[in-house]
């Protein structure tokens, strides 16, 4: 299979943009992902709604383009994309993934961070439990589970005191 180009000239809402994989990743690095309603793209281990990413990168109003356009643009830049399925307890695998990754695999890149999990998805990751809960409340979200992703043996094992 040919490797995907990581530089693209795209036209969105009648305006031309030169986008690169790295530029997009850099643009969303300090950005809090919004809740995923349906479609998502994975950027540096975090899931974003495609329209949020394109808005962040281009400065366009999100009413100016569709979710489908945003998703297609990001897929062409090589970002894995997927879709949450509410009825199922598991999310569909990202489009560019060869095999479905389990939650534990997807959590590896978030070692040391606090995560809120719902339907086997990472709803949000944050640097502290307080930030995580603030995000949930701000976005009216409910998690099914919260924990810190283990970053070492002690964190992973529990090492119960007697």
């Amino acid at each position, binding site marked *: 299979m040919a490797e995907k180009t990581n530089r693209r000239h795209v036209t969105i809402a009648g305006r031309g943009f030169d986008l690169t994989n790295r530029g997009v990743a850099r643009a969303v690095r300090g950005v809090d992902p919004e809740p995923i309603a349906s479609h998502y793209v994975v950027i540096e281990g975090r899931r974003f709604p495609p329209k949020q990413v394109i808005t962040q990168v281009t400065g366009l109003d999100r009413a100016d383009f569709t979710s489908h356009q945003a998703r297609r643009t990001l897929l062409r830049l090589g970002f894995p994309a997927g879709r949450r399925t509410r009825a199922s307890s598991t999310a569909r695998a990202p489009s560019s993934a060869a095999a479905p990754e*389990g*939650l*534990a*695999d997807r*959590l*590896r890149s978030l*070692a040391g961070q606090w995560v*809120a*999990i719902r339907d086997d998805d990472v709803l949000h990751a944050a640097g*502290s*439990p*307080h930030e*995580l*809960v603030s995000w*949930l*409340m701000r976005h009216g*979200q*409910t*998690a*099914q*589970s*919260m*924990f*810190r*992703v*283990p*970053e*070492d*043996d*002690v*964190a*992973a*094992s*529990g*090492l*119960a*005191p*007697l």
Partner: protein
Amino acid sequence: MRFAFRELPDPGAASVRARPIVDVVVEGLDIVPQACLIDSGATAVRFGLHVAELCGIELSGADERRIAVGGALVRARMASVSLRVADAVESHSWEAPVWFCDPWAPAFGLLGLTGFFDHFEVIVAAYEERLELNPVPKLTL
């Protein structure tokens, strides 16, 4: 109540082993149930101090101890709190003495003997990666 074992990343292991982890709602804080490892080697229920902070549990004047966790001394303070577990079909709530620890190295809470195992019959079917919790009826004296 039945639960499947869950996998968490384990940086020290070659492969991930699913473990008996359940989500516990502490003091009715429904928006973030706390992931907890069921640990028959622990004598008590223990969480990080952040859980008390998130739930607004007052710990000033609480029973306090120093305990060793992973070679480090930890300050642990106890409060009696309400806990709830639920599977897809049913749920069970109970009051338990919980020790809130600072610092807290584990990535999750620990459900130990006092406060958890004395409230449930616990079946751990590791070969099937399945966990069953049957609430024990309260004794009336």
